[in-house]
């Protein structure tokens, strides 16, 4: 799946590896939902192109849609039908629909099949959307802000339902809450104001970011020359702290000592995902420039 230049989504290019759980992260208004709607051909890009399951999104047909599951926090379903009636309605459109799987998901999510969709709570509706997206074992599952407004219990039920059926499917999930994708996503992309800040696998991302604390013999000052990978450099008393965006266990000491004299000790700590994103977002806003792996 490829995605290229759009006016609303400026300079956005990313690929979702097959079989991955790809998380699109960004604040509200970052362009996540727009991106997904373009991929689903709900919105048409004015320029550029998007490819889904090998097909240009603008020519996506029922054949491709039968292989895509879609769950969104803003999904309008016929409110006067019951959950069961709507599932009955959808079933014939999917040649690969598995009724056993449907039953098992419905039980697992504890969905009241006889209740009208309009009477469902927000969480129940999201679970219902999941029930309508999984039984045909889609190749691609797109989740647009699926956890928005869910209480932790429902979120866990939702995730259990999802992960149990995930199998080989590719998952594209958008969220503005980092905690929601922790432990789920294998890859991550960060969007800000329609731009892609970076795209990386979670392992690489968490592996290369470290919060570094340098203790000096004298009062610390910001070095004149700061490597571009050092972010949020601060001097407090005789301690200099920064975030190393390209951490290497063996190279850190040498890199620090070559720029700072009087180093008494260097301490590096792994960073939580939230801290990494906060750092990147601040750097992006402060510099007004793209920050991307390799740049």
């Amino acid at each position, binding site marked *: 799946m490829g995605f290229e230049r759009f006016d609303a989504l400026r300079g956005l290019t990313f690929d979702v590896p097959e079989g991955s759980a790809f998380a699109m992260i960004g604040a509200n208004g970052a362009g996540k939902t727009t991106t997904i709607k373009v991929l*689903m051909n*709900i919105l048409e890009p004015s320029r550029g192109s998007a490819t889904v399951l090998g097909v240009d999104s603008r020519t996506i047909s*029922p054949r491709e849609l039968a292989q895509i599951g879609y769950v969104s926090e803003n999904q309008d379903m*016929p409110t006067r039908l019951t959950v069961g*009636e709507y599932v009955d309605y959808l079933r014939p*459109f999917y040649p690969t629909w598995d009724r056993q799987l449907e039953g098992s998901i419905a039980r697992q999510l504890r969905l009241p099949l006889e209740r009208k969709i309009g009477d469902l709570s927000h969480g129940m509706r999201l679970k219902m959307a999941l029930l309508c997206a999984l039984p045909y074992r889609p190749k691609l599952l797109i989740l647009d802000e699926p956890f928005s407004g869910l209480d932790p219990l429902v979120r866990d039920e939702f995730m259990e339902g999802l992960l149990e059926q995930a199998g080989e499917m590719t998952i594209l999930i958008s969220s503005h809450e980092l905690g929601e994708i922790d432990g789920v996503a294998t890859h991550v992309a960060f969007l800000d104001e329609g731009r892609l800040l970076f795209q990386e696998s979670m392992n690489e991302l968490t592996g290369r970011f470290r919060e570094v604390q340098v203790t000096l013999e004298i009062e610390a000052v910001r070095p004149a020359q700061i490597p571009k990978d050092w972010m949020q450099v601060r001097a407090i008393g005789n301690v200099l702290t920064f975030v190393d965006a390209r951490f290497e266990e063996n190279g850190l000491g040498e890199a620090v000592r070559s720029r700072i004299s009087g180093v008494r000790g260097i301490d590096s700590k792994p960073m939580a995902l939230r801290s990494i994103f906060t750092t990147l977002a601040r750097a992006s806003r402060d510099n007004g420039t793209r920050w991307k792996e390799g740049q």
Partner: protein
Amino acid sequence: MTIWHIFKKDLRLLWPFVIAVAILWWIEVVILFRLGLFGENPVLANLSLALLPFTAVFATMFLVVAIAHLDAVPGVRQDWLVRPIPRGKLLLEKLLFALVLVVGPIFAANIFQGVANGFAVREVLDAATEGAVIFACLFILPFFALGSVTENMTGAFIFGSACAAVGTAILSSANDMNDFAHGTIVTAANSGISWIPVTLELTLVAVGASLVLWLQYFHRRTTAGRFVIAGFGVVILAVQLLPWKPAFAIERYFSAQPNAAAAVEFAFDARLGKFKSPSGVARSLKNFQPNRGDQPADVFLPLRTSGIPGDSIVISDRVDFYVLSEGRPLYHGAGESAQIDRTGTNSPEKPAYQEIELPMSFYAGAKERSVTVRADYSLTLFGLAKSYSLPALNGSERMPGLGWCQTQTNEAETAVELHCMQLSRAPICATLFLENASTGVQNPPRSICSSNYGLSRPPLPDVIARYAANIPFRDATGLAKYPVDGSQLAESRVVIRLYEPVDHFNRTVTIPEIRLGDWEAD
């Protein structure tokens, strides 16, 4: 299979609405049936004439829009957009749903109404099918297109109201312009040739709505779809304003018997004298138009007619008159339409008075001057097509081509009331008179000719046209005496002669050197 599947879903969601609309139409039809020809129950008559049709039309409109909104095309949140539902099949299903469950009950109600009123099943089927097609094209399709470019009922209401407001403003401006131009910007609408704009409108509505549906269901171009609706709306309004002359030229081309009116001539004849109103009131109230701030003067020009074939009626569809002085036009206006009939071939040809209406401000300055008046006529010749009769008292006859008619005397016992119903359309031109079947004595015929003899019919799905006329036999004031009076009704018959248009033609009458003041009505 897919279509049927979606159909079932839509039915599950809309069945109460579908049933409610069908019930409304059926109540209307049952009331009409109960009312019969004379409809003497005022409560039921009011219900069937105003409240029920109005409610049923609005309910149908909302239902059609709701069908589209079940799987709304605009917007980005609809679940169906991410489902493998072929859009062509979805469109077909919606149209099928509207045809089967909206038009279907109306079609069935019409068949019931026609058959229950004694019309032949085959004729009822033909008329109901024609009505259903027109209703589907002129009503269902455009409102479905409106539904397809809106996401919900509020949006449809706002967009529809905006379109209606713009349309009303355009038509109102056109009317104002026409008033300003003394009625000379006459269009083909609401006239004998209105079938031309109606046919054009029908085509444009069908084409425009189909284009919108194609844009929406196959490309989801809502903005383009809305512009198409607006654009076609303006064009359809423009068709309403189709100029008379080219439309009448088309009408002439389609004359049933071209040149049948070749011998018909009109000429000014001062010897016929001034017009004398039978009632003694020259200026009728209809001519008083206070909003113009200029009360008009009526001038009646005597015309001698010749060459009108026997058993024919000539109707002036439109009269353009010019008051000229030394070749220069002083005034251009529209004359009143007139009707001249000739019964049999031996009866003398009647004179006619052309009424022209002039603003008092112009007339005051021009009435003593010697001017030239030129009148350009667009005319239609009607020929006798069929003749029918039925007893004048409590008659009830079913007559092919005329429908089912009944007679009774009115409460004041001054006239025979003739009430008829016919499938699809009422006759467009008829003369009616009382004839004593024993003596052959006849009362003067009364002509009832609609100026609109085209193909037009209202898009409302009532398959039966009802029409009525009063045929007088006694003057309550005692001024007029009728050869066939109330004492002869038992042995008299109402004679109905139907006329059909056979030729359309133009004539110009030029009257040099007259003083308008000489021809003002007394």
